[in-house]
């Protein structure tokens, strides 16, 4: 019951955040000097033609009406026409979202698995040297800007050793491998995925690792651990069953704070590896003054981040009943 109430309150907060995010996205783009359509309407055009274009982009109406119309179109999944591609933004972004997903989802899963495992191992290890090395390595990775690690990886593994490709999702000329699962079920794709995936995983790993390590160390001094040991359970079972299970909770709480970081990392990795995803598209849109595209990507990332955070919060409340009470 308490869980349902908590979930409802989280959903209400999510709705409130979206209610702020959407108009904000709209207004942000009215801050463009002149108006956004100035990017496609040249100042030398025939004033009559300018008027027609203005009407087509709907920028000749009062701001409030524009906002209402924007919301109306949004409700139908219409994100406007891309200036650059002359196609609906939603159509283009659907493909880009998929491309981003096939890189970022495996990266999150791998980073969480490896990070928590290594964190738990080092915390439980009695060799303090291993612990120190791992901890400092994690801090070093955390301090390294991702575009630097990515560039150095390209330099070493692609340009020098020529082991892995540094550009794109598949070898040109291999043909479009189709859509959906068929597109990613090929060795050529996996070969292209390896390096960006490794970089994203490495980038994302220090946080779960360090959090898991700290939480484990604290848990190992808790009463229930001593009780388990006093009952004569084997050390390994105590550590990896009793302590690790509870140490996973702080790792879950960490997730919402990290979505923004993860999205930022993704933008950069896509740029370095010319990965045709949403992150590369938003940078591209800025360079080509494609305002509807910028607006679309920004809105979509914002909505994704809000949704993920809400889901994680509810999941956390499910895992740790203490949260629901507050």
């Amino acid at each position: 019951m308490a869980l349902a109430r908590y979930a409802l309150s989280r959903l209400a907060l999510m709705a409130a955040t979206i209610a702020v995010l959407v108009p904000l996205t709209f207004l942000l783009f009215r801050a463009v000097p002149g108006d956004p359509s100035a990017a496609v309407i040249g100042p030398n055009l025939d004033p009559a033609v300018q008027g027609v274009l203005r009407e087509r982009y709907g920028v000749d109406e009062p701001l409030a009406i524009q906002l209402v119309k924007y919301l109306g179109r949004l409700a139908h999944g219409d994100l406007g026409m891309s200036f650059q591609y002359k196609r609906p933004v939603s159509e283009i972004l659907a493909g880009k979202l998929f491309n981003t997903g096939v890189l970022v989802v495996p990266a999150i899963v791998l980073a969480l698995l490896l990070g928590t495992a290594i964190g738990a191992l080092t915390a439980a290890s009695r060799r303090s040297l291993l612990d120190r090395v791992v901890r400092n390595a994690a801090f070093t990775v955390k301090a390294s800007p991702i575009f630097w690690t990515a560039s150095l990886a390209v330099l070493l593994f692609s340009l020098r050793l020529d082991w892995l490709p540094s550009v794109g999702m598949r070898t040109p000329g291999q043909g479009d491998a189709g859509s959906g699962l068929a597109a990613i079920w090929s060795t050529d794709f996996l070969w292209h995925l390896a390096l960006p995936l490794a970089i994203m995983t490495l980038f994302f790993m220090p946080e779960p690792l360090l959090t898991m390590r700290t939480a484990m160390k604290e848990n190992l001094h808790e009463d229930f651990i001593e009780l388990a040991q006093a009952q004569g359970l084997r050390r390994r079972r105590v550590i990896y069953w009793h302590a690790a299970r509870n140490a996973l909770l702080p790792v879950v709480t960490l997730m919402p704070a990290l979505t923004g970081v993860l999205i930022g990392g993704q933008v950069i990795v896509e740029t370095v590896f010319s990965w045709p995803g949403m992150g590369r598209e938003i940078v591209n849109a800025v360079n080509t003054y494609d305002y509807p595209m910028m607006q679309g990507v920004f809105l979509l990332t914002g909505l994704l981040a809000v949704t993920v955070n809400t889901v994680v919060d509810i999941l956390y409340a499910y895992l740790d009943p203490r949260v629901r009470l507050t």
Partner: protein
Amino acid sequence: MTRGWGGPSRAEPGRGWNHTVASQTRARRRTDLGRYGRAALAALGDLWRAPGGKAAIVFLAGFVLIAILAPVIAPYGPFDRVRGGDGRLDRLLPPSLEHPFGTTNFGRDIFSQVIWGTRRTLSVGAVAALATVVIGVNVGLISGYLGGKVDAFLMRVTDSAYAIPFLPFAIVLVGVLGRSDVVLVLAVASLFWRTTARVVRSQVLTLKERAFVKAAVVGGASRWRVVYTHLAPNVVSLALLYGMLLVAEAVLAEASLSFLGLAPTDSVSWGTVMFDAFTSQEMRTAWWWALFPGLAIMMFVFAISLLGRAYDAVQGSRRDVRL
């Protein structure tokens, strides 16, 4: 955190009772400033004595010194094209005694670029961090002390600031307002105040139950006087720490935007050097071009994270790992 770092400020209340009103106010302002100054010094002292604190502070001071002395240290200007003895451009030379970090495809000395870049990187970082901390501390103080509806409203705004992913936001802001350092500062300041606001608020919530605050209220101090004379000096140490962490965050933000080609190109920062290296298509040979500016960023951010760890050692606290 249950205790203010270094405890409540021990500054005496203004002792101007036998002077005119004007000099009373002056005296009061002086002691207020004194409280902030003493709190900041105490905080720095604690960090200096903490394990790893000395190293971090010396290291960071070194970076600041490099930024200030850039014209003295750098052998060339950031955009100088260096020519060899035979009058030809020194293109893509590997690191040597003459060019410790090598040269670019235009014959620019990368060592000089990194040294000059320290200037812009650090100043943009510092200004952004300062603006952010000022917003965060004030939101936290007001939210925590006033409570009620103001608190509820400000905390919802803080939640929304957490919901917006930074880099897409900054990219869009550049797309809308153009490429400039002001836009970068604006982007950092309009989102990253959130963590400072939260930690300051929770600190204020415990501080306002303490005797010295209650005494001030009973003594007839106005709300603003309580907040800015009695509470604020006690969050100076927190503000200082988050200010430092924010410098690192702002430096990374500046570098990321520069690397994406979204920074002004008329001056050099660590990020713009990386951008040039990446877009030059010369990375296959010129490994040094990307290596050194990135190393500078990494060392700077690492030193600040050392400072964060020193703070944790002093406080026995665990902070949120990300801002």
